[in-house]
């Protein structure tokens, strides 16, 4: 695998950069939303914290997901375009991206309602979904690095 990385064609590098950068920014956006929603009630300005959480997911997380996904499809087409069977780590990546998108959108919606209605419960629900996403992200980052067969 690492020998493969060393001889990776140059044309794969930019899509890979987009994919990794998008994914890392997405992790940062979800992390921010998790911390701000789950700690909102412990601060003097819980409404501000819930707004930060929503904007983090909406203004940073959504564009980051799009960039991550475009980079993923781009490099997949170059690396596995003609392959019949995908390795396991590709399957883990796609599954996390697809199911993760659904969870992300629910968390985004809950964060939006929480910010608008000043609801601690909705905010926390969004935060717990974010925790679930972060756990999935750790698994998928491990899979992208270790590339299990």
């Amino acid at each position, binding site marked *: *695998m*690492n020998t493969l990385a*060393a001889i990776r064609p140059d044309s794969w590098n930019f899509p890979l*950069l987009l994919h990794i950068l998008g994914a*890392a920014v997405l992790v940062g956006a979800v992390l921010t939303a998790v911390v701000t929603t789950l700690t909102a009630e412990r601060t003097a300005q819980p409404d501000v914290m819930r707004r*930060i959480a929503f904007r983090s997911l909406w203004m940073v997380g959504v564009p980051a997901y799009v960039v991550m996904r475009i980079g993923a499809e781009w490099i997949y087409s170059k690396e596995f375009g003609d392959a019949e069977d995908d390795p396991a780590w590709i399957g883990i990546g796609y599954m996390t991206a697809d199911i993760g998108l659904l969870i992300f959108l629910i968390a985004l919606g809950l964060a939006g309602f929480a910010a608008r209605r000043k609801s601690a419960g909705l905010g926390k629900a969004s935060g717990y979904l974010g925790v679930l996403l972060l756990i999935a992200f750790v698994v998928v*980052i*491990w899979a992208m690095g270790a590339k299990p067969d």
Partner: protein
Amino acid sequence: MELNDWILALHLLAAFALIAAEVAFSIMIAALWRSDSPSRVASTMLLARVGAILVGVGMAGTIVFGIWLAISLDAYQLWDGWVIAALVLWAIGGFVGQQSGQGYQAGGELAEKLAAEGTTSSPELAEIFGTSRAFWFHIATGVVVVLILVDMIWKPGA
């Protein structure tokens, strides 16, 4: 799976922790842009603490597992140009990140003190959370992080 596959995965996780922390700090800075409210600034300090922990984990993990891989894998050597560039960038990133962190930490501590005293507005805070020295160091940290990522992917000279 071999041990080096696990080490690469841990190296990657550490790098993600570092970039995620950088993103969290950026969101915090944007949310507090020119804010003069001690209470508002103090409310985000828990996020800053989580970010600081992730920076520590990320800095340690990237360097330890990165050097391990450079020594362990036949394809790479510690004295390869791109590895040396990564080490230099890592050190520069650590320095500028620390400078930025110290500036914002001072702002956070000031905000907590003022909030506890009941102060509702502070021009000094608005200055720190605007285009301050800490802000420019934060921008520099972001640039260095992207450069490290580019260096890791392109591996010039490998």
